[in-house]
């Protein structure tokens, strides 16, 4: 692909590496293909695509065309890297390996191993997309922000959560709220003040997910006030 004798400037070496990615996966019989170190070539394109996917999903309203094209390209790359690998979903938190990890792999064996783990993560990501996932970066501290993109499954959220009356399923927003917690006498309503939900109402995005600190606080409150009469419910 670089056969036309173009002058390459020093500062364009990075671009040259990226270009060689293109060359690497094309017909290796092409006379002008420069043999780049395989690990840099293959994984950088994969990583780039995953980064683009993450970036796209993080938008509040993803550009569907961009998203679909990136996902399809990622699938092509994935398929060409390890076409025969089939992996069972592994229930560990998905973490996209950094580029430096891939750069360290210097042999084909190491390449396959790192590719396998990446594929594993990607299939894990796609498997997780069934479960409700917050699309926004915010989340309980400690969870890697980029760690749980929900691929296209998260796009389900675009459907029901809209003012568009043409789209049915507004009821779907409210279907999976467990209201039994509100029926219980012991439940302290101040929990609503602890974690103010987003403007777009309850539903998959706003399902109250109290972390341990908040639960502890609640327990203290419950234990402390149980001896007294039931406190008035604020905000109701």
């Amino acid at each position, binding site marked *: *692909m*670089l056969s*036309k*004798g*173009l*002058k390459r*400037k020093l500062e*364009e070496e990075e*671009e040259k590496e*990226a*270009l060689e*990615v*293109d060359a690497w*996966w*094309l017909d290796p019989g092409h006379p002008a293909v420069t043999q780049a170190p395989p690990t840099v070539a293959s994984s950088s*394109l994969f990583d*780039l695509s995953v980064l*683009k996917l993450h970036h796209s999903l993080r938008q*509040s*309203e993803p*550009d*569907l*065309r*961009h998203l*679909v*094209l990136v*996902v*399809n*390209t990622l699938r*092509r*790359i994935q398929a*060409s890297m390890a076409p025969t690998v089939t992996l069972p979903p592994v229930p560990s938190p998905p973490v996209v390996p950094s580029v430096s990890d891939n750069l360290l792999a210097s042999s084909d064996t190491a390449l396959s191993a790192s590719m396998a783990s990446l594929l594993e993560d990607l299939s894990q990501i*796609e498997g997780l*997309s069934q479960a409700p996932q917050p699309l926004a970066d915010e989340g309980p501290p400690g969870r890697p922000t980029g760690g749980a993109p929900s*691929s*296209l*499954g998260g*796009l*389900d959220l*675009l*459907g029901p*959560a*809209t*003012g*568009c*009356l*043409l*789209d049915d399923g507004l009821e779907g927003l409210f279907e999976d709220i467990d209201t039994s917690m509100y029926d219980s006498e012991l439940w302290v309503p101040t929990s609503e003040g602890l974690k103010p939900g*987003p*403007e*777009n*109402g309850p539903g998959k995005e706003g399902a109250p997910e109290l972390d341990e600190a908040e639960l502890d606080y609640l327990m203290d409150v419950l234990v402390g006030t149980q001896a007294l009469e039931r406190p008035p419910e604020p905000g109701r």
Partner: protein
Amino acid sequence: MRWHQAVPQLSHPWVSLQSKNAPHSQGEYDVYSTFQSHEPEFDYLKSLEIEEKINKIKWLPQQNAAHSLLSTNDKTIKLWKVTERDKRPEGYNLKDEEGKLKDLSTVTSLQVPVLKPMDLMVEVSPRRIFANGHTYHINSISVNSDCETYMSADDLRINLWHLAVTDRSFNIVDIKPANMEDLTEVITASEFHPHHCNLFVYSSSKGSLRLCDMRAAALCDKHSKLFEEPEDPSSRSFFSEIISSVSDVKFSHSGRYMLTRDYLTVKVWDLNMEARPIETYQVHDYLRSKLCSLYENDCIFDKFECAWNGSDSVIMTGAYNNFFRMFDRNSKRDVTLEASRESSKPRAVLKPRRVCVGSKRRRDDISVDSLDFTKKILHTAWHPAENIIAIAATNNLYIFQDKVNSDMH
């Protein structure tokens, strides 16, 4: 044809209409009217801001002295009416010049009010607002030849509207899968046939075109014709799909052909042949070896428009570095021109440009590596009857005219 440059004017999120300010000053253009079409909005349900950025503008066929146009942002379409006033009545009997009622005792004779010329006043008023029809981002609007309906397309759906009805639209195409995880293709552009009001076409991110007949069914999910070119195995790469994504589709004025633009080419399709296009023109094939870099900087996702001239003999599209390209279908000759202040003076003839890829380089050639990818010509338009073109280059709008042949050839 020799193209002359008119004075460039500014264009921004406002809809700006241009016209000559004096008939004798050739090639001098002034702003005709400016108005704010859309304002930023906030979708409270999704906590999202909807940008006021306009995606498409379409003129309606003129039916009286006024002009009408449709403009759309991501979610809302608006119908605007543009009227001119260049005369005003003077000499009322009961009102004075300021419009105040006269004291009747001072009126001693009757006069007939006359129309006197005044400075041109352009009035633009919103006539309809078509809202809440789309969940996803609107990418095209197209007015039907019946002049009563129009369609709007977003990534997954196409709606049919009546120009007089704003609270209702009919969904005519829906490609949203039951499970969004199965989504692999989106709608990228759509257009009504220029003569047959029941026919329309829409393009996809996979490079296919679907011609639909609204008489066949209420929901046109089944196409009447599917136009798709099989992938060339020798040029297959990871980016094959991205570069095959059609960014614009336009019927020829004759209605016999369609023009499509994908990342590297423009193609002419014959409605009678679904298997492949009848003509393919390379817009900037020198970018084929740079697809990875263009993927990295997202330029590979740029959406270029394309246009026919009035006689369907020449097609035009934009490129990078403020270049735009014209292809003569009959002579098979093509030209690259540049839209920029530096390279053109008023009434100057545009000089053809050349991009060189190898070591052989002529004096004014631009090398591929020097192309400025931030200067993109995404929007181009050709006057339906005359050899006048409009080229949008970032913040500037250029209007060029062919002085040698002002009529179509």
